[in-house]
């Protein structure tokens, strides 16, 4: 039996392909949007996975250090080490800073850690040039996206920092590049004030400035100790909030990324709706263009089922080719985005199912037109 859809498409192949490419670009953007969300989830967990600690101790009643601000005394790490089950403890700081770069400053998150302490915040395999921090002062490790090279000097606050290492793929939960400095430098940057400010504070009678603060103390446990048990002990006796790695992951992915994911979800839904409307309009227009032929076919006795099959097959093929173009488009541009975009096959298959279902629904508008076509319209010139 003659496949009418195949013949019709072959007759206007260029137009069909260009139309499919247009819809495909829309679907590609849908895939990119999903990829942006996936990228946010990955980014949110990079630091967490690189540190790979069991417990995060933060200021009481906060969701610190990422979702809420948290300040605690650095000395708490010594106390934690004395708690039964704790193997190692170390202090960390996190702060947003702007690196003075040309043509414009680069916004980064600086992670402060003790290079001689229990934890190295920089995973060795992330370093692509230079080395990790080795001194307690004036060294900085930056990510490749900042554009700095090993050996360059960056002025932060009152001091100059020498770039000693370059990492790749290290970003904060917000997607900003990570840089690493020593804990002491970080504390000075975050908690020390300028001379003018200190003089001003003294004049106001404020003299007690404690720069030995950190944002979190992280701890790893000895084998055989449960995270929850040790966490409960710290909560009870030290009046701090304590999160296990899994809980911190939940905070990052739910509290921090949730709104963004809803935002992206809304955009994605709107884009899918727009794509569906466009497919429906294209099919409707394609059907309208063939109304004379459809009337003739009905007049000479071609059953509706055969004509409807043509419309539905064309819709499905349009959706499928658009899906393929969408994937090609997404894979061509995804690494050009400033933030991480993660394209996953399950998302693509899910989009294919959704778009096929919507394409079938949108073909109904063309099918309705076929059913209502008057065979008598073929008569009379």
């Amino acid at each position: 039996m003659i496949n009418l859809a195949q013949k019709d498409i072959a007759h206007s192949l260029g137009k069909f392909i260009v139309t499919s490419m247009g819809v495909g670009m829309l679907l590609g953007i849908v895939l990119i949007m999903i990829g942006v969300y996936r990228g946010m989830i990955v980014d949110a967990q990079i630091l967490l996975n690189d540190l790979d600690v069991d417990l995060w101790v933060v200021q009481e009643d906060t969701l610190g250090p990422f979702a809420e601000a948290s300040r605690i005394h650095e000395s708490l790490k010594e106390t934690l080490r004395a708690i039964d089950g704790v193997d190692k403890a170390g202090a960390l700081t996190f702060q947003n800073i702007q690196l003075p770069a040309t043509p414009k400053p680069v916004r980064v998150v600086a992670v402060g850690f003790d290079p001689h302490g229990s934890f190295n915040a920089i995973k060795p395999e992330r370093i692509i040039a230079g080395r990790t921090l080795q001194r307690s002062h004036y060294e900085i490790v930056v990510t490749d996206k900042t554009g700095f090279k090993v050996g360059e000097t960056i002025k932060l606050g009152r001091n100059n920092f020498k770039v000693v290492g370059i990492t790749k793929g290290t970003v904060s939960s917000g997607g900003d590049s990570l840089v690493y400095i020593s804990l002491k430098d970080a504390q000075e940057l975050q908690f020390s004030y300028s001379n003018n400010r200190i003089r001003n504070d003294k004049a106001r009678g404020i003299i007690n400035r404690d720069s030995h603060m950190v944002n979190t103390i992280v701890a790893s446990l000895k084998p055989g100790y449960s995270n929850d048990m040790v966490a409960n002990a710290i909560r009870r006796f030290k009046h701090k909030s304590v999160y296990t790695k899994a809980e911190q992951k939940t905070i990052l992915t739910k509290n921090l990324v949730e709104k963004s994911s809803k935002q992206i979800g809304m955009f994605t839904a709107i884009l899918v709706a727009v794509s569906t409307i466009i497919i429906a309009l294209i099919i409707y227009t394609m059907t309208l263009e063939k109304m004379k032929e459809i009337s003739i076919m009905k007049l000479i006795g071609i059953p509706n089922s055969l004509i409807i099959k043509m419309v539905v097959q064309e819709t499905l093929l349009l959706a499928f080719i658009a899906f393929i173009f969408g994937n090609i488009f997404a894979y061509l541009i995804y690494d050009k985005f400033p933030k991480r975009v993660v394209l996953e096959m399950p998302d693509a298959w899910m989009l294919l199912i959704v778009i096929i279902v919507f394409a079938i629904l949108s073909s109904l508008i063309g099918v309705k037109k076929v059913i209502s076509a008057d065979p008598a319209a073929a008569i009379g010139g």
Partner: protein
Amino acid sequence: MSEKSIRVENLIKNFGEGESLVEVIDGASFSIDKGELVALTAPSGAGKTTLLMMIGCVEEPTSGTIYLGDEKVYDNKWLTKETRKIRREKIGFIFQAHHLIPFLTVLENVTLVPQTNGISKKDSEKDAMELLKYFEISDKANATSAQLSGGQNQRVSIARALANKPEIILADEPTAALDLKRSVDVVKMLKKIAVDQNVAVVIVTHDEAMYPLCDRIIKIENKKVISTEVNS
């Protein structure tokens, strides 16, 4: 004894109702034999195309009876839900314009209806090629209508009308867009088909020059079939 191919009894067709009622055909009764070429003529708007569409099971009459061959297809209502099947199996249509499907080749246009009727691709293509040879356009089998001249397209459309081996051919003003010579050629071709294929051919035409080529003329005037005279 001649075999009736079309028989119409007391056929009435009205459009609208109440004050807006328009009577188009009022009690038409006639018959057409197999092998006969009949011209259906009337002033513009008098209902000849409507009558053609009623015979072709496209337009539903208001009342009356229609027989196609031995089968009564209408008796104050359609006697089958599948009027389209009747068209597909019993009737061949020829239009004023060729009305070929532009995205199908000549061969596909001619084989579409037979294949829909369940004839295999191989058999339908064999029959179609014979028809195309008959109309001397077999070398254009793989061309589309856009690649053919007007005359070639008209011949393909006649081949398509014959492809389902119909009992009746209904032609709606097939010569309206042609010059006299080509019009005569087309009507002579239809006469030959009527005889060769033993089918009833009804052509709607205004062109009086075609009347002598037909076996009979059916005229509609003032809603009535006023004459069914043998052409002599």
